């Protein structure tokens, strides 16, 4: 920050501590008290842009020297329906399978050969739970949309989709055949195999905590959670393994991607806006495209014992991504060798963006379905899905 201010003497940067929660974001948005530059997840950026709640950055963004290098799909996440750029990507991830190498070894499985099909996942989960007494496979099932998020992830790997079309005219397809298959997989692991342990209300951070404590064999989450595992739960790096999700052999099958981007308050004047863009450029984007900044960032993080080199998705093209990784190679302190299965397979997988219309409402409609399957042996999957579909459709049609 000091360097930025030195290079730009007319700009003063004030860091503001802020933790994103749904109600606080909405309130700050309404009260206009968000910091000038703030982060939003991919899912919210376009809706906010369409509602005029983010500043238009198109002019300043196009002027950036590396603008043409951006990955088109990633840039699209920050472009609203009118074609304006309202956010620049900060980091992108793909869903992945995280597994505990130590538990694999204890159960007699090869830690370097994580499962490549869902059938193998189910088999390995059973073996882990039988041989080690720990949960073999665990899935998020909390009512805060994470349950729906992971279920959607599974469905994408089987080739299904939650929506057809876009905007308010989109049609909800939650009750498609692949969703039923995914839920039956869960039902099998939960009730027949009993390989999912005894906790069924994991959210994003609890599941990380349980994994770091060594109680979970495998789970699905974003490929970037290693950072949280280290920072919040002080995980022992030697147990961590990262694999790509098993993808079915259908042409629609792929892996769900997400990410965070940086936006600017709509109510700022031009001077403040260009200052904000300069900051975004300096703090978020340059470290990905200039060697000196990349190395500087990496060395600072490493000095503070923060993870460097956690696998992410390229914001630009793959060449840039590989190049950036060679720059920071000396500082990488994450066990990349243990993440090899992911790194080998991910670039061959098709990346699919999250459902575009009313994303959070779609996930929310799926939450109780997942919870029901995991807590009620006799849950009627089809009728639950039909009900969820109705709820999601209502939300989509009303633009929520």
């Amino acid at each position, binding site marked *: 920050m000091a360097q930025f201010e030195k290079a730009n003497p007319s700009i003063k940067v004030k860091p503001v501590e*802020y*933790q994103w929660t749904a109600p606080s974001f909405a*309130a*700050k948005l309404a009260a206009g*008290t968000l910091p000038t530059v703030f982060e939003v997840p991919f899912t919210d950026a376009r809706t906010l842009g369409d509602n005029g709640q983010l500043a238009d950055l198109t002019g300043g963004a196009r002027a950036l020297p590396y603008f043409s290098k951006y990955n088109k799909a990633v840039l699209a996440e920050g472009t609203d329906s009118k074609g304006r750029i309202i956010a620049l990507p900060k980091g992108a991830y793909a869903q992945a399978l995280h597994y505990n190498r130590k538990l694999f070894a204890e159960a007699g499985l090869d830690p370097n050969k994580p499962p490549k099909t869902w059938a193998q996942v189910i088999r390995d989960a059973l073996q882990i739970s039988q041989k080690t007494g720990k949960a073999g496979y665990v899935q998020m099932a909390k009512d805060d949309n994470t349950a729906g998020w992971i279920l959607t992830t599974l469905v994408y790997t089987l080739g299904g989709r939650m929506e057809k079309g876009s905007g308010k005219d989109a049609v909800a397809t939650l009750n498609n055949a692949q969703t039923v298959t995914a839920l039956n997989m869960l039902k099998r692991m939960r009730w027949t195999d009993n390989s999912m342990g005894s906790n069924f209300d994991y*959210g994003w*951070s609890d599941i990380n905590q349980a994994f770091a*404590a060594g109680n979970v064999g495998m789970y699905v989450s974003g490929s970037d959670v290693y950072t949280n595992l280290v920072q919040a*739960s002080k995980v022992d790096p030697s147990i961590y393994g990262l694999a790509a999700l098993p993808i079915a052999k259908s042409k629609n099958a792929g892996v769900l991607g997400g990410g965070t981007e940086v936006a600017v308050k709509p109510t700022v004047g031009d001077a403040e806006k260009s200052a904000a863009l300069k900051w975004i450029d300096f703090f978020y984007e340059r470290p990905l495209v200039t060697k000196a900044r990349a190395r500087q960032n990496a060395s600072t993080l490493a000095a503070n014992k923060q993870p460097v080199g956690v696998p992410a998705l390229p914001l630009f093209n793959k060449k840039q991504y590989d190049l950036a990784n060679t720059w920071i190679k000396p500082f990488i302190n994450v066990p990349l060798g243990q993440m090899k299965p992911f790194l080998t397979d991910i670039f061959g997988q098709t990346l699919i963006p999250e459902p575009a219309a009313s994303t959070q409402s779609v996930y929310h409609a799926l939450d109780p379905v997942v919870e029901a399957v995991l807590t009620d042996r006799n849950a009627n999957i089809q009728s639950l899905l039909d009900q969820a579909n109705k709820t999601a459709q209502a939300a989509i049609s009303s633009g929520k």
Partner: protein
Amino acid sequence: MSAEERPAALVTPTDWRRPGVRLGLGGAQVLLLAALVVVGLGPILWLAKSAITPTADTIGHPMALFPHGSAWSNLREAWVEVDVGRYFWNTVVLAVGSWLVQIVVATTGGYALSVLRPSYAKVINALLLMTLFVPAVVLLVPLYIEIVHPPIVHHSLIDSYWAVWLPAGASAFNVIIVKRFFDNLPREIFEAARIDGAGPFTLFTKIVLPMSKPILGVVSVFALLASWKDFLWPLLVLTDPNKQPLSVRLPTIQSQTELGVFLAAMFIACLVPIAGFLIFQRSFLRGSGMGGAIKG
């Protein structure tokens, strides 16, 4: 005579001498006491024990007593790394501010309506009592909007402690108990003071306030306790983690904190209310009983 000192009346000494009563009733009382210890005190003792037990032991053998030694470091870590100290301080600041607002509103209002008795007192009293029948949920959303877009100040009060302090003053419960107390104050003293030339301010500060110590004690105890326990409102209006009190912060940090340290943090959060309760038992229990008398 207060509850503790009143002699038992239902069962007479003669009754007690009968062996049937001795065994039956006495036995039941002993059972009750044992149950109270296990149920009332048990969880708190468990919390205290686990606060200084290593996490692995708490998870693996929750009912064992220090199988591998104790971990006082949990407390230190809770205070320093989880920063329980800061949230503790926030809770104290919130409590003191709310208490002050409530005392000011309760004493001045009670004095005016009960002692000075203007002609519009009846109307205001009626309005105040009516709010008692309105469930708190009705106020939640508009109060929140009012804090986000306050009418006169035009600057959001979110993340300001005033958002918690000011609404605390509107407590109908305080109104009732203070009014009752003031109504029972002997009028002769006021008359005597007035004849001596005391104006309303002097009357308030030199006569009424000193006489109000008991009721102020009850109001204070309840105000401080209510503030310490408050959850939903601070959750909504204090979004900056550095300003949040313990009750709001504890759930959020649960997934980032190992169990032993987390339990230690919870234990620290309990200490002040428990200590306060043990020291000021009489005020608590009398105030609760009074609450019952009013409701009856």
